[in-house]
């Protein structure tokens, strides 16, 4: 079964509920949200670049300088924890051969929710 069909099957199993709890669990972590926001614009990125973007976005924007160590820790947590969660929610596909991640086709409610979250989260952080 393809990943897409799994998601559709899960939804149909719950009687046309547009939401899965996997989706909200995916959104519940800040690093995962920043990853999704970046993937809104760039539908395929290297995991290394995604780690750099998440590190910069989450930490550099509020006045910190993010060094190599912290970026590498974020890279590891993306690889081992966050990307698998996003994959389980059907939002991304990880290509371990090329160390890259691409955005899966998001449903309209999913896309709108991520966009809404982006607006709220980046607005709140403005001084």
């Amino acid at each position, binding site marked *: 079964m393809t990943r897409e069909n799994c998601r559709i099957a899960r939804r149909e199993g719950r009687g046309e509920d547009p939401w899965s709890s996997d989706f909200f669990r995916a959104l519940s972590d800040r690093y995962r949200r920043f990853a999704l*926001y970046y993937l809104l614009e760039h539908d395929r990125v290297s995991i290394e670049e995604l780690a750099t973007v998440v590190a910069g*976005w989450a930490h550099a924007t509020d*006045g910190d300088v993010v060094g190599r160590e912290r970026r590498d820790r974020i890279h590891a947590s993306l690889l081992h924890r966050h990307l698998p969660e996003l994959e389980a929610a059907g939002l991304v596909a990880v290509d371990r051969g090329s160390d890259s991640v691409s955005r899966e086709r998001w449903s309209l409610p999913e896309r709108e929710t991520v966009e809404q979250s982006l607006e709220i989260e980046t607005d709140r952080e403005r001084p």
Partner: protein
Amino acid sequence: MSFRRLLERGPSRRVHLTVYAGDESDLLEGIDFRNATVERRRLPPDDADGFVVVHDEDEFVAAVGPAELARLVEPAVHDPWSAALGREYRRLYELFRGTVFESLERRQLLGATREVEHRAWTVGNGTLRVGFQRRAAFDDQLPVYARLAAETDLAVHVYGAWDRDPPAVDGLSYHRGNSDEIGSFWFLAFDGGDGERAGGLLAEERSPGTYAGFWTFDRTLVEELSTAAVEAASAAE
């Protein structure tokens, strides 16, 4: 190698900067780099402030936000012995060391100058060479160098193309030179003393108040700056 040649050649660092920001952002715009490539990648939304990622060739160095970058553009200039010149100040100058800026303002160079002088002050020994394009600029800074000379074991050598030496100050040696090299460049070279914290700077005023130049913490390049000063001064004597 002369200062002229050193500035033309520039340091060997190859920096790559990626600006992640919204379409409306002007982050890093208006800063003219010579040996750094700048790439822009879109971050949503349109008005995202963003951040800049610094790579040394392919190696990630750091990600830095607009507030930090603003401190490079508008540094708070402190005395070299000020506690305000701490880790954060140093970190920013470390990030952009060896990058040639084509149009720095005097205040921005002064910020870098202070970082080098702070190293000299902290180590407290070794040789500090400093050259001024204009006598008035040195007269302004004389109290700083007088204090560095008085309160440390630093050997402080001052270079300029003026007609008469400035007032004698204990610990300061003056060297007058020709105006092709000495007097045409603003430079510093601190050899690091026994603390191995070398630092240097080289800049040339291109138009009133606007300079092309770089700062460096590379020991070899600092030695080259030092040699250029000594050779230019001895050629004039």
